[in-house]
């Protein structure tokens, strides 16, 4: 039974509607990667972008009925597709303005999107480049000028020509690099420390690594925006704080910290939440990112499916869960697609008592494969406490079936480069995968298992599985235009892939937050904040506090 995750979730909200005014405090360890939406692309910064940038479409607000849905933002609807599926047309709303009062027209949107092709700027979301047709050597507006494959017949209409049909294009149009940019601006380092806001807030102060201050964008018209409520007057981000300190501050809730929100709590903090005074502000949501162990199918003896299945049986997922922080911080996973993402299908191909691993079965399979005495394998790992604990748990559980796991510790900064380069990749690695949108599993299964996507560098198919059957099943699923049918196809495909055991799903890490007692409007957003808190709805109960 794999569905243990579904029970814990709280719908979110915390009592009370946000009032108008006040400043939300955000306590954060790391700085955002980039202020430029064409450069940044991760759960955290995408969430932040929604406060200052608007895109053609956007994931629904966390408080919406279906938060996984993609809804219109700058556009009046989620686009109209041509019959051949190659042309998508969007119409802009009226009254859209930048923070300086200049109107936002289709030209600005097109300019913003075309920046994605610039080799140095367009390092964010890759989807625009992947699906939109463009001249072969097009290098963005600053180098190559106008992009002919995006047309702007008038100020409010924008037409995209795709390379191939892509039914999920509305989700692509919600990517941060679909934010509008004034034509000609934004070259070089112009938007390093500045932004051109189209959302409800604009940048007041930015000290990299320490402070971001957002104030109201007076030119943002709430009437044009169904997603953002933008109740607070401003946002104050404190960056570079130690995670333990953040937790201490949240627990203490002194001064302005009553208005504070932050990321996940540390495992050590959980034991201190037993006090009832914390219980009513504790937020506990299922996650959308799967933690898994990739098994490199090109290496002996992992090229033997029996061996991979044996490993799938042997791993003590409960120990991995404990190392991650126990049941409060992680749900055990048996599938690749997490439960909160559309397309999830419940199954567990390698079940065991209490998820502690089935040693007998594993030994049996190993014996069948001719490895009754086990073997040695190397696991790429990062030396961060949580990741280290997960790796150590795997090491210990595989030791039970005679598999000796040696660690190859890699510095965090080099980890993805190493495991994403098949030449450097070792036998196994533990990593995670978050979907780029929650409305479909099209950003889960293909990147992880499509054999044709294996590249020399930046590879995400860690199993390096290249199975014609799976490849064609992926093509089929991508072509399905009916969302429900597509979801079913993805779910079945997930099961089909795991029969081959190229990865061992381990966990889905949960979201456990402790917002300040004056904070409300707290909702999960699987689409934009990888299951975390959606900033767009957050506000204060009493703006005069803190």
């Amino acid at each position, binding site marked *: 039974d794999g569905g243990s995750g579904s029970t814990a979730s709280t719908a979110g909200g915390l009592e009370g509607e946000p009032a108008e005014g006040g400043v939300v405090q955000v306590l954060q360890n790391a700085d955002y990667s980039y202020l430029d939406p064409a450069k940044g692309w991760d759960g955290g910064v995408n969430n932040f972008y929604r406060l200052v940038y608007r895109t053609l479409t956007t994931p629904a607000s966390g408080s919406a009925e279906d938060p996984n849905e993609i809804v219109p933002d700058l556009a009046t609807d989620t686009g109209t597709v041509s019959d051949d599926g190659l042309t998508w047309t969007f119409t802009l709303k009226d009254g859209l303005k930048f923070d300086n009062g200049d109107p936002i027209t289709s030209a600005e949107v097109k300019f913003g999107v075309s920046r994605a092709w610039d080799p140095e700027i367009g390092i964010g979301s890759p989807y625009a480049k992947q699906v939109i047709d463009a001249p072969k050597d097009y290098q963005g507006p600053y180098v190559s000028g106008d992009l002919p494959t995006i047309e702007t017949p008038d100020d409010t209409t924008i037409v995209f020509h795709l390379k191939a049909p892509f039914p999920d294009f509305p989700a692509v149009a919600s990517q941060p690099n679909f934010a509008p940019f004034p034509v000609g601006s934004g070259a070089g380092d112009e938007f390093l420390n500045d932004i051109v806001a189209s959302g409800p807030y604009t940048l007041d102060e930015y000290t990299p690594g320490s402070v971001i201050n957002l104030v109201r964008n007076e030119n943002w018209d709430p009437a044009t925006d169904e997603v953002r409520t933008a109740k607070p007057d401003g946002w104050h981000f404190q960056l570079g704080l130690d995670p333990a300190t953040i*937790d201490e501050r949240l627990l203490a809730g002194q001064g302005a910290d009553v208005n504070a929100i932050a990321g996940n709590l540390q*495992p050590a903090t959980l034991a201190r939440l037993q006090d009832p005074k914390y219980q009513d502000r504790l937020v506990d949501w299922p996650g959308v990112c799967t933690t898994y162990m990739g098994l490199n199918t090109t290496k002996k003896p992992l090229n033997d499916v029996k061996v991979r299945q044996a490993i799938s049986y042997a791993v003590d997922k*409960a*120990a991995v869960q404990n190392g991650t922080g*126990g049941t409060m911080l992680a749900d055990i996973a048996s599938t690749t697609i997490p439960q909160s993402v559309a397309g999830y299908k419940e199954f567990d191909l390698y079940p065991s008592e209490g998820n502690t691993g089935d040693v007998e079965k594993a030994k049996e399979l190993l014996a069948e494969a001719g490895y009754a005495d086990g073997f040695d394998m190397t696991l790429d790992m990062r030396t961060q406490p949580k990741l280290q604990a997960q790796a*150590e748990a795997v090491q*210990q559980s595989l030791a039970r079936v005679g598999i000796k796991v040696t660690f190859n510790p890699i*510095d965090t900064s080099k980890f993805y480069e190493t495991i994403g380069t098949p030449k450097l990749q070792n036998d196994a690695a533990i990593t995670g995968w978050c979907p780029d949108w929650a409305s479909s599993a099209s950003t889960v299964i293909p990147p992880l298992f499509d054999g044709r996507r294996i590249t020399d560098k930046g590879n995400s198919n860690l199993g390096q599985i290249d199975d014609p059957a799976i490849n064609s099943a992926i093509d089929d699923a991508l072509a399905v235009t009916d969302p429900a049918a597509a979801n079913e196809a993805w779910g079945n495909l997930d099961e089909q892939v795991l029969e081959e055991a190229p990865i061992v799903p381990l966990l889905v890490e949960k979201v456990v937050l402790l917002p300040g007692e004056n904070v409300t409007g707290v909702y999960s957003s699987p689409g934009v904040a990888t299951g975390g808190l959606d900033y767009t709805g957050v506000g204060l109960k009493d703006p005069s506090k803190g």
Partner: protein
Amino acid sequence: MTISMTTLEAETGGAPSVGVAPPAPRQGVWHHLLRNRGAVLALSYIALVALLAVAAPLVVKLSGWGPYEFDQSAIDPNLGGLPIGPLGGISAEHWFGVEPGTGRDLFARIVYGARTSMLIAIAATTLTTLLGVLFGLLAGYHGGKVDQVVSRVMDFLMAFPALIFMIAILSALPASNRAPLLVLVISVFGWPYLARVVRGQTMTLTQREFVEAARASGASGWRIVLLEILPNLRSTIIVMTTLAVPGYIGTEAGLSFLGVGVVPPTPSWGQMIAQSMSWYAVDPVYFLLPGTFLFLLVLSFTVLGDRLKDVVDAGERR
């Protein structure tokens, strides 16, 4: 890092005077050292830790749990992996309690951690001493160009923000076997501090007439250095070395704390402290144990070095 590199020199007071010294016979030093309560306590603790480190596999057999064994039954999965029971899960089964999240036995990890800490500190001390004495002697004895070159290299190494650089190098280098790498990196930045003192003393010693006497007797340069000068540096080297050990223990712990220490799952005290820091409020035992062990070890070496220095100085004044 707990102890900056400059400490070493400060503690030994730059170049301790080279006495027109009496033999300061070995048993004399011992005899005086063993009369000092602080020194005896320090020595006993060091001996205890050394014993634990050397006999770790045996000790762990006695206590029943290995340093890598998970004990899921000792922790509570619903409370973030907190050890079950009071005082961090201290029980007859787990003498020092268990590690949160994994349930590994803390006693075993401390014992094995002692191995890491001692091994690295002692290896680093040995290497720095070798390098420091060698280059110090070279520069001090030859003076002139050799001295210029060695001194510039030392200036250069001492000008480096050693900690930043160590972290950067350690995190950039492939890390399959961190311990030798740690020793190497620590030593590369550590030897100039000893070398400077040795150089200074060698320079004064070289002025002394017995060096000239040896030369007049036909001794070659390296014989003068090895047979005449080196024996006179003995007490300095012993004192500096003793005072260097706690520095390197601290450095290793600091580097482990910053995540570039030995490779897991091998335990080290610094790493344990780093991991236990976030648990200090809910599982203080977990936090205090490695911290106390580390503190006492550093303290012991410092006290020992201090007392040793007093005894040796007093001997030289006699």
